[in-house]
């Protein structure tokens, strides 16, 4: 059964990818790439990666579509027809594909328990999580504690990207804002459209609630700061689309957003420093409490909160920077 599903979904994925590249209409490409993300999420779920599927669905299908659309609103809706010949590129790409496929023949067999990937650190993580941290979700344990350095780095990459977008675009409308009739956020929002507005407003509290559930249930089920940040940002972006960007800025002003971006990353780093001050290593949470396991759990909860805060702040400020550029 899984085999049939796998073939079907992978083939759909390929068809969607070809359609994305083929379409001259950028709007169609963006919508198809949202579909592509959803299909990819289902594929991840079939491959037993629930956390990754949740992230891909929230980020790829939700936030990335909105960001691409707001960029289209300021730049162009159509791609220019290609003029140069594409045969050379096509030949190179086909040869590279064949080489890659030939190379994959040497890969270990799919889902083989004896594959090298499954021999080294992974069994150790699966064994030690119950003993050292005592939470069910091993992905969260590896993310937050065993490989906390990595995650700290990733949070700072997200932080830097947010700062970069703010430096590039600022908060002022750009010179092309006036000329484009295709606007992302009307100052008045969707007030003329009763049904989407009513239903949308009704859903926002539930999306926020689900975001918080994903944030604080990450130790027990699929979830964590990255997914929760994307979900909460999506709820507020939905509010901005319904009620106009200014209403959303009244709820969370720009100054608060900048505080969120920096605050989350700082929270993560400070928890790491606490480890040093209490006489252990950087990002070792076991000294935070008298019981090492409790300390680990406490540390995880705090750093996940830090991740969630930074991701929410960055995604929202990127959205506002794009929306403000095309406004008025």
């Amino acid at each position, binding site marked *: 059964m899984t085999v049939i599903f796998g073939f079907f979904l992978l083939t759909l994925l390929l068809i969607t990818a070809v359609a994305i590249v083929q379409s001259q209409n950028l709007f169609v490409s963006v919508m198809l790439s949202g579909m592509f993300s959803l299909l990819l999420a289902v594929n991840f779920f079939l491959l037993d990666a629930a956390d990754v599927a949740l992230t891909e669905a929230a980020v790829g299908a939700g936030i990335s579509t909105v960001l691409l659309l707001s960029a289209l609103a300021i730049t162009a809706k159509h791609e220019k027809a290609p003029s140069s010949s594409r045969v050379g590129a096509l030949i190179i790409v086909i040869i590279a594909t064949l080489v890659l496929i030939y190379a994959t023949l040497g890969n270990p067999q799919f889902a083989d328990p004896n594959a090298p990937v499954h021999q080294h650190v992974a069994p150790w993580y699966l064994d030690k999580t119950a003993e050292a941290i005592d939470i069910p979700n091993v992905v969260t344990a590896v993310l937050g504690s065993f490989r906390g350095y990595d995650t700290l780095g990733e949070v700072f990459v997200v932080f830097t990207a947010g700062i970069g977008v703010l430096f590039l675009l600022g908060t002022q409308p750009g010179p092309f804002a006036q000329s484009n009739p295709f606007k992302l956020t009307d100052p008045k929002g969707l007030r*003329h459209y009763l049904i*989407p507005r009513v239903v949308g407003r009704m859903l926002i509290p*539930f999306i926020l609630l689900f975001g918080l559930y994903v944030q604080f249930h990450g130790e027990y089920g699929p979830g964590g700061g990255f997914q929760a940040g994307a979900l909460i940002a999506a709820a507020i972006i939905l509010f901005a689309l319904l009620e106009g960007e200014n209403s959303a800025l009244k709820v969370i002003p720009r100054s608060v957003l900048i505080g969120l971006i920096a605050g989350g990353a700082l929270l993560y780093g400070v928890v790491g420093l606490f480890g040093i001050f209490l006489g252990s290593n950087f990002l070792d949470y076991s000294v935070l409490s008298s019981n090492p396991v409790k300390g680990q759990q406490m540390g995880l909860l705090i750093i996940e909160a830090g991740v969630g805060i930074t991701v929410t702040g960055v995604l929202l400020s990127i959205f506002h920077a794009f929306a403000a550029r095309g406004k008025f």
Partner: protein
Amino acid sequence: MELFLDIASWILMSLGGVFVFIGGLGALRMPDLYTRMHAAGITDSIAPILIIPGLMLQAGLTLASVKLLAILVFLLLTGPTASNALASAALLAGNRSEQVKSTAVPESEE
């Protein structure tokens, strides 16, 4: 009892699958946007009403059933809203089918 529940849930799920198939077929074969949306609406409305209770019968009285119920409620709320938004956007963009042209088109939603 077990067998009866199994049979009932499989009947519900297969019927739901049939409606999804009809919806997909309609979305491909119908002549214009509005009739296509009409067909696609089947996958949003009647199909989950059949499939999700079928899954709930499989799950029994557990937390999973409550989650499935929540999914059903949200699908029933968002599906028709999305159809409505899509239709009004198409109307606003000037996509008018032959049938709609002959009758009066409402200028605004209010």
